[in-house]
């Protein structure tokens, strides 16, 4: 095998996966998830330990797509939020304390995703800024509360310091602060973090019923 053949797609893809995920540790134990075998997931508006009051809702706007594309029915996040608010739970802190039986009775989700946001937003240094999102996830069985899967979603992005010496760096840091008031980088970071968490080949969430059905249909079509 010469070096060139390493770059053929067959080798490149596993190599790429390895690069993204780093060295795999112990394979994760998926037995609880497989036994529970949920079709639907309810995402509770996240508990927020960051200083950004918008963080839970930015997160909510970026979780439906990757979760549903993974093959699960995802309850409509805004409708759920309105429903909980109308029922005496004005903030995510209270929403995270609803007993499972109540959720089961009114929403009937097979599994519930609880999210805690640790860090969210931009920090400005003199010459640059760093934007960061970080949250911890627990997916539990909707009836028993048993832990089915967990994850840590994290992404960060630095900006500024793009050459031009000190003056140039200062200007770009100031520009970044002005721009970021309008163009918040956290939604995009959150999308990236969510994707990596759900689609990590070693620790990600297993495909749900809608994706499994599609993969099965594809397999049959190709035979």
């Amino acid at each position: 095998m010469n070096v060139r053949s390493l770059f053929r797609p067959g080798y490149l893809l596993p190599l790429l996966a390895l690069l993204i995920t780093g060295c795999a540790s112990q394979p994760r134990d998926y037995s609880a998830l497989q036994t529970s075998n949920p079709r639907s997931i309810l995402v509770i508006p996240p508990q927020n330990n960051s200083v950004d009051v918008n963080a839970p809702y930015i997160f909510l706007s970026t979780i439906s797509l990757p979760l549903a594309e993974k093959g699960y029915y995802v309850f409509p996040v805004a409708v759920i939020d309105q429903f909980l608010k109308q029922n005496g739970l004005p903030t995510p802190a209270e929403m995270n304390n609803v007993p499972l039986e109540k959720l089961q009775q009114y929403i009937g989700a097979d599994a519930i995703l609880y999210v805690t946001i640790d860090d969210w937003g931009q920090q400005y240094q003199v010459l640059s800024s760093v934007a960061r999102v970080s949250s911890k996830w627990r997916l539990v069985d909707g009836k028993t509360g048993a832990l089915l899967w967990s994850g840590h979603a994290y992404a960060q992005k630095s900006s500024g310091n793009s050459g031009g010496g000190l003056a140039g760096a200062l200007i770009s840091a100031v520009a970044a602060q002005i721009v970021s008031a309008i163009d918040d980088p956290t939604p995009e970071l959150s999308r990236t973090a969510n994707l990596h968490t759900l689609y990590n080949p070693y620790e990600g969430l297993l495909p749900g019923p809608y994706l499994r059905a599609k993969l099965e249909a594809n397999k049959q079509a190709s035979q």
Partner: protein
Amino acid sequence: MFKTLLLPLLAITLVTGCSGHGQRSLYYWGNYEAVLLDSYINPGEAPDEVQIEKLTATIETAKKREHQVPPGLYAHLGMLYLRQGHTGSGVAALKEEKALYPESAVFIDGLLARANLEAQP
């Protein structure tokens, strides 16, 4: 916003689509996530009427491309219609959610029953 949605979809296709045919995503997302973000972060720019318009356009495009409408979109549209007093359209959208995704039955039936719009089927 279109560009930022494209990247995750592309990544998903890369991750999940290595097994031959049908490399497109399960759903056509259109404006759904952008509407969610705007409604939370820039509520002034996302009054219910504008959200309804964008979601309806997304449904139209999905139909044209013969691509499925994602979980939650019809339910969100139904909530907006009801808030605006368009009861008929609201009930129809909620029922569409349930027809597409039976997993939502407990929640949708409850919403309809409590709003006194329609009892159980």
